[in-house]
């Protein structure tokens, strides 16, 4: 599991409330990613980080912000949750395997916005 944990694993919230999801890694990897997974869309990149305080947007970043104040933690915040943000959220890290940099995923957070 590449030493990745996500918290919470499940969350139910109401429209308009802020929500923060946490990704924690234990292997000191530089690159970290947040994806959302929805039926018919596969995995879509929300934001990624290439170091402490260094982040950039992915393809579906609207309504989301991220922060990385420590190497091991990458936080995803839904500033004002909407029903369209109901999804499963995955964190990933990039690690070398077989001579290739490859992404490894955490267990996911299932978010329901009512």
């Amino acid at each position, binding site marked *: 599991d590449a030493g990745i944990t996500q918290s919470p694993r499940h969350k139910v919230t109401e429209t308009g409330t802020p929500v923060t999801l946490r990704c924690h890694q234990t292997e000191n990897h530089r690159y970290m990613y947040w994806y959302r997974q929805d039926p018919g869309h596969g995995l879509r990149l929300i934001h990624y980080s290439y170091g402490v305080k260094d982040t950039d947007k992915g393809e579906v970043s609207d309504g989301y912000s991220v922060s990385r104040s420590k190497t091991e933690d990458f936080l995803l915040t839904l500033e004002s949750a909407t029903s369209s943000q109901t999804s499963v959220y995955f964190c990933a890290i990039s690690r*070398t395997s077989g001579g290739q940099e490859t992404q490894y995923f955490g267990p996911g957070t299932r978010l329901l916005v009512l």
Partner: protein
Amino acid sequence: QQQVKQSPQSLIVQKGGISIINCAYENTAFDYFPWYQQFPGKGPALLIAIRPDVSEKKEGRFTISFNKSAKQFSLHIMDSQPGDSATYFCAARGAFGNEKLTFGTGTRLTIIP
């Protein structure tokens, strides 16, 4: 814009049969093509990956076939088993190791006895 197209969306195969999932890409700068396997309630896990300098890569019962001129690649699962029932995602990435992955939309594979 979907840069990696995956088919079929769902697939049912009898135990012992061959499961085949296809992907096509548009961006000729893609240089690394991994496949991920995902079981319900779990995160995607790297299954097998290929670079375009080879046409085929085999790991156990899993084989990737790659056709660079057609910009297509496929996953073959030989002697499919019920434990292979999962969702499979193809993906593609540029040449640099930390470039972003672009994923296909996934194939739900069910192996029936």
